[in-house]
């Protein structure tokens, strides 16, 4: 009996989710571990679906670009709620589109003590115009080093520079130790 009820609840959830995705023109939703394999798979799915949709090459390339940077950020930097579970980098990914733009939304858990620096970085990137972003990118390429995690500290600058849109971000505190970081990047359809 209980089993049946649970099953019904799930079907309901699946249907609601399907409907929500259709009405909001969501192309992709994922929650789980984010690895290089996942990154390659999602970018290739998105690429194929954009090709079919006859979206311009420039827009396709920008969406691809933002996805790679966001997913590789998660696979390099995401923290986990459970202290013992340090291996798996998990996150959520959503790609949707409207009349005028594509939104790439990613979310992952992050330690509270990293929040101030991350926030300051994002605010700094958002304060710059195209030329300022290009200068910062060049400076960071020259002076920065590839970290142990394989990042170059260039991802947010690159996204802001190539999309020409401000990065929209939010931190939701989950516990005393961690928050949920949500980043929304917007690619304009010409």
């Amino acid at each position, binding site marked *: 009996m209980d089993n049946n009820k649970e099953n019904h609840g799930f079907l309901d959830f699946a249907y609601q989710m399907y409907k929500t995705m259709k009405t909001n023109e969501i192309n992709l939703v994922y929650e789980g571990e984010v690895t*290089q394999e996942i990154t390659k798979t999602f970018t290739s799915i998105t690429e194929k679906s954009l090709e079919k949709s006859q979206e311009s*090459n*420039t827009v396709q390339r920008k969406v691809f670009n933002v996805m*790679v*940077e966001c997913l*590789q950020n998660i696979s390099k930097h995401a923290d986990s709620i459970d202290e013992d579970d340090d291996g798996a980098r998990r996150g959520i990914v959503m790609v949707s589109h409207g009349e005028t733009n594509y939104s790439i939304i990613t979310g992952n858990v992050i330690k509270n003590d990293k929040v101030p620096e991350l926030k300051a970085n994002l605010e700094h990137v958002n304060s710059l115009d195209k030329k300022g972003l290009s200068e910062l990118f060049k400076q960071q*390429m020259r002076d920065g080093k590839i970290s142990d995690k394989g990042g170059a500290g260039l991802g947010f600058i690159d996204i802001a520079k190539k999309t020409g849109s401000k990065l929209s971000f939010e931190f939701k505190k989950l516990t005393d130790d961690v928050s949920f970081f949500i980043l929304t990047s917007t690619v304009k359809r010409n």
Partner: protein
Amino acid sequence: MEVINITGTDDTPNVILDKENGKFEISGRSLPEDVNMFYEPILEWIDGYAEAPADKTEFHFKLEYFNTASSKVILDILLKFEEIVENDNAVVIKWHYHEEEEDMLEAGEEYADIVEIPFDYVSYTD
């Protein structure tokens, strides 16, 4: 010198480094998970080449896409060629970009701002 000839994949580029035939090219896509691991042998090869470079080197970048970690390594490659230029050898970077990909042209221009090597921009279509 040995020849480096790597065939590209979904996330790594084609690389040809062939001193004998004067072919130097990185093309395709570069978004490996571990950029250091992929590019280490390439940087080492260039270090070796720098010891006895050709009088004139034409290095082709024909990248369709690269991630930001790769952009840092590409600068490292260019800086090595800058040293070759400083030692009075001619180097030209042929920077290929798809005519619709302004971002790729801009990326080349940014590198040209940083390093003292002449860049030629070459546009291509499909």
